[in-house]
């Protein structure tokens, strides 16, 4: 399950994802509960997904 969607497995409960930044290793923390974003630390944090546009040539499905 995608880390930012894992909250849907725990309805009504606060879920925290803590992970190292893949560039510098410093901590990124996201706290969420159902529809609500409780906090993102640091607030400049971003998510990056290698898009299927890049990968389709290697045969990945469009459903991604």
């Amino acid at each position: 399950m995608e880390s930012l969607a894992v909250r849907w497995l725990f309805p009504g409960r606060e879920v925290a994802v803590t992970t190292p930044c893949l560039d510098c290793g410093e901590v990124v923390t996201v706290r969420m509960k159902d529809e609500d974003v409780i906090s993102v630390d640091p607030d400049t944090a971003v998510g990056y997904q290698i898009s299927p546009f890049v990968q389709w040539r290697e045969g990945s499905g469009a459903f991604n």
Partner: protein
Amino acid sequence: MNLFRSEEHARRWPLYSSAAEDYILPISTWLEIFSGPLFRERLSPDYFEKSGEYLAQYHAALRDAGKASPYWNYPLIAELDTVRLSRYRVVGRYTRFEPAVLNELKDARNRVVAGLERHSHHRENHLLWAAPGSGKTFLIEQVAASLGESADYREINLAKQDAPRFEQKLEAAVASDRPVLCLVDEVDAHAGEKWPYEILMPHLDANARGEAHIVIVLAGSSGFSLEGMKQRIAGRPKGADVLSRIPNANHFTIQPLGFGDRVLVALSQLHEAGAALGHEIQEVEKLGLYYIAVSDRLASARQLQEFAAAAVERVPRGDDRVKYDHLFVPGDPENKRFWIDVSNIARDLVNSYVVLEA
């Protein structure tokens, strides 16, 4: 999902691909996208029955976020009917799809041209930040070409100069007996050296002093934005003095090429290939246009030009349409592979055509 402390951190990641830069989004935006039923309903018993509907909502959420990658932008092509290329022209053969980008660049072009049409006797210097691959050199070349014989064009890539050559080229530019448009590209190169801006500075005053009729465009792509590039320049010896010689109204940005721009470039190249071969092209099958716009094998202008010429050569005489199959030599597995990959989402692009007008 790969998480980073900021956009700059993501761009430094060894696996970062500029082809997927549209997929850098604030975490709050990703959380909204992952609030859709494609993710929240995964445990529902009817999930697979409704997955097509959920997937469409996921695509819509990506487009609403404003940064969907080309792969998911097929609705833009599906909705195209007639494209008049002249409507999107900034200058010459440089076109942009988004109206805001188009108008901003037309205004910048007008300011550059005004400085060449009459000698103002004040500084006619410009600062241009351009996203990588957005065609800054081509844009300035096209501005120069539009002036014909009324002005000279000089292009100096600072990264490729040493001090004597840089000075020599600038001296030659200001010595011209005609108005000169001078592009100084990669203006933040040689970051550890003093000489670039020491040499540049007096030439930025030449027009104001009446020693030459010259418009100088200082251009670069570093720093992620115009502000970022200005900070880099300001931090260098004489950098603040260089910036002070560029009127604020003459700072401009070329935004990255978007999906609509790739579509426009593809149509332009097919149109020009037809004109060069004496075979007028009036319609392009939408699936073919979609392939050209998303294909990373056609990233450069030269690749696209050769590809378009080969495609037009495969169109039978008497037909004015480029079909998807004309893009490939018979038996090319790429044809089938792309179709299999997109057939579920882009079926309505088959046998549907965009009408092309010059």
